């Protein structure tokens, strides 16, 4: 089941997203006319390599979940490409998308809402096999027990219902379901934010173990930068539908370049009473993505705002740690 190291080191990305846009129409007035658009995802580019974790961080409303759902094709993106192993899945229809759904799976934040409360755990875990018409009854039963074992739940859980489990155990069921069909890419949308600290570390360790065992790629979406940095190889920071900076976790943390990334890192409370916080507190709230500010969308809150920021939209540039900020604009 595991992939040979040679394959893992192949330089072809498993997922490659180009200029992805998701604009939701906003209906207004008595005639419900579509005048404006909520530009939840507005021109996103990134790659994920096999076996790699890309962490996606941002505050609520920055479009990180929408982006995840576009890639899982729960939404039909407005524009752009989503190449999965070389095939553009952005515009595939229901039927054509089916085989890709086996390879791209999703883990949700709230396992209580993402698990059918009227189905037993056995039924929940068998469903992916039924949908994709894989194996006979005996095979499916055997796989379900294997899956439960993989995520650290006892085999007797099969006949029990989601409500009989604690939050952490439910998330394990959600994870078991997502790995049922041996996917290649899993989109984890805030998988640990609803859990207590002591349970959170159990789930993070499980995700890391599973990744090693099955050479999974993760798109790990969360608002907690410490959690994202812990699990990710690379991190992308999102603000108002755009990636403002990306790079290796360590370098983002040590040498954040974008003023937003810097404030985000400095805002995280450190569990050490001797830590002296040199905090850069941002003023105001995240603007609405329906009516984003002109130029750089961060200029309304940026501590280093310049005149040019209000007019010109910065572009993401740079090799190892691309950043989209006029402070780092290369002279043309």
């Amino acid at each position, binding site marked *: 089941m595991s992939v040979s190291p040679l394959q893992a080191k192949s330089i072809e990305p498993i997922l490659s997203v180009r200029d992805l846009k998701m604009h939701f129409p906003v209906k207004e007035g008595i005639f419900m006319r579509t005048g404006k658009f909520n530009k939840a995802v507005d021109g996103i580019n990134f790659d994920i390599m096999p076996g790699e974790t890309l962490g996606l961080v941002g*505050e609520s409303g920055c479009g990180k979940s929408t982006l995840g759902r576009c890639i899982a094709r729960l939404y039909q993106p407005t524009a752009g490409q989503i190449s999965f192993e070389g095939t553009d899945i952005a515009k595939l229809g229901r039927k054509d998308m089916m085989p890709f759904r086996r390879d791209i799976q999703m883990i949700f934040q709230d396992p209580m809402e993402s698990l059918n409360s009227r189905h037993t755990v056995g039924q929940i875990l068998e469903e992916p096999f039924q949908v994709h018409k894989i194996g006979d009854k005996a095979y499916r039963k055997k796989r379900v027990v294997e899956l439960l074992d993989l995520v650290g739940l006892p085999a007797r859980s099969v006949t029990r219902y989601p409500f009989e489990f604690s939050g952490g155990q439910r998330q394990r069921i959600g994870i078991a379901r997502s790995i049922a069909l041996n996917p290649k890419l899993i989109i984890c949308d805030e998988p640990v934010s609803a859990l207590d600290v002591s349970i*959170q570390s159990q789930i993070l360790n499980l995700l*890391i173990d599973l990744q090693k065992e099955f050479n999974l790629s993760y798109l790990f979406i969360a608002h907690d930068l410490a959690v994202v940095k*812990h699990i990710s190889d690379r991190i992308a920071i999102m603000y108002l539908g755009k990636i403002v900076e990306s790079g290796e976790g360590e370098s983002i943390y040590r040498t954040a370049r974008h003023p937003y990334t810097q404030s985000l890192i400095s*805002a995280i*409370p450190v*569990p050490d009473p*001797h*830590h002296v916080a040199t905090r850069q507190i941002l003023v105001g*709230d995240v603007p609405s993505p329906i009516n984003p500010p002109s130029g750089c969308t961060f200029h309304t809150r940026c501590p280093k705002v310049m005149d040019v920021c209000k007019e010109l939209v910065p572009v993401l540039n740079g090799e190892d740690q691309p950043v989209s900020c006029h402070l780092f604009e290369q002279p043309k």
Partner: protein
Amino acid sequence: MSDVILSVNKLITEFSTDEGRVRAVDDVSFSIKEGETLGIVGESGCGKSVTALSIMRLLPQPIGQIMGGEILLEGQNLVELPLEQMRKIRGARIGMVFQEPMTALNPVHTIGRQLTEVILLHKNFSKDKALREGIEMLDKVGIPAPDIRMTEYPHQLSGGMRQRVVIAMALACQPKLLIADEPTTALDVTIQAQILELIKDLQKQMGMSVVLITHDLGVIAETSSSVVVMYAGKVAERGSVCDVFDRPSHPYTKDLLESIPRLDTPPKSKLTIIPGMVPGLLDMPKGCRFENRCPYRKDSCLVAPPDPETIAEGHEVACYEWQELKRNTVPGGDSANFKLSAVA
């Protein structure tokens, strides 16, 4: 001990449920001095919010009841106070801020009406004066154009702004004590930083004491001077923030501190885990409540719950095996421990 604002002694709070009586808060004691910030930290269901509701006497009626202990606010025992008098204390001498600002505010009344209600209730002000006071309060909590905001409804404000309004309401009558129950949990980190800073500033200005309840050890480390760590309704450990974070002496505190991913730990390293989960309130173990998850468990732990023991000035631990834990702890703070457990 004249400078102690609030002291909670051996508080016991119970709920009657269909399946029987459960003890959500069991023998909890702590005190808070004037101008101090005390953090109460613990995971969901540990009894930290019920402790806060007990202090405010806001337990859901009739199922929640204080069964024992005392809550002394500047020497006055709140447990025995008639509800009528308690109402005069809430808002006036103790302010409270809840987690979800949308549910704490009434959606069909304007900000102004809700804010002046508190002032009119506790102070003998004319409506005009209350209105001016309200505007001043909004200005104090950093809301731009406060006079316009007074006429708006909660849904017109963002989450961070709403929490500022709730704080303004809680502090409108200059209480001596503010109880903040997860005030920033529903907010984004950059907004959380704003709100924590605001609480700190106002605390300095008004000289009040703050009880900050949270699950986030980082928030405690940054805001509080002393901390109470709760587990399954009991106090596991309490002391100054430096004592508890540098020398965690209860196995639960120690593992909890090590299980959080930090920005400076190597990526994809194994996090310390606390195996299993919190026991249900209905089937609490007879002995120590952490017994089923504890790496230091001895047979003696199963017999009776440990009493808090003072192990250093102002540092109390409820664990029979704290000396054993101390022997096993490598000197050099918890970063050294972390590396050890990462290898193991």
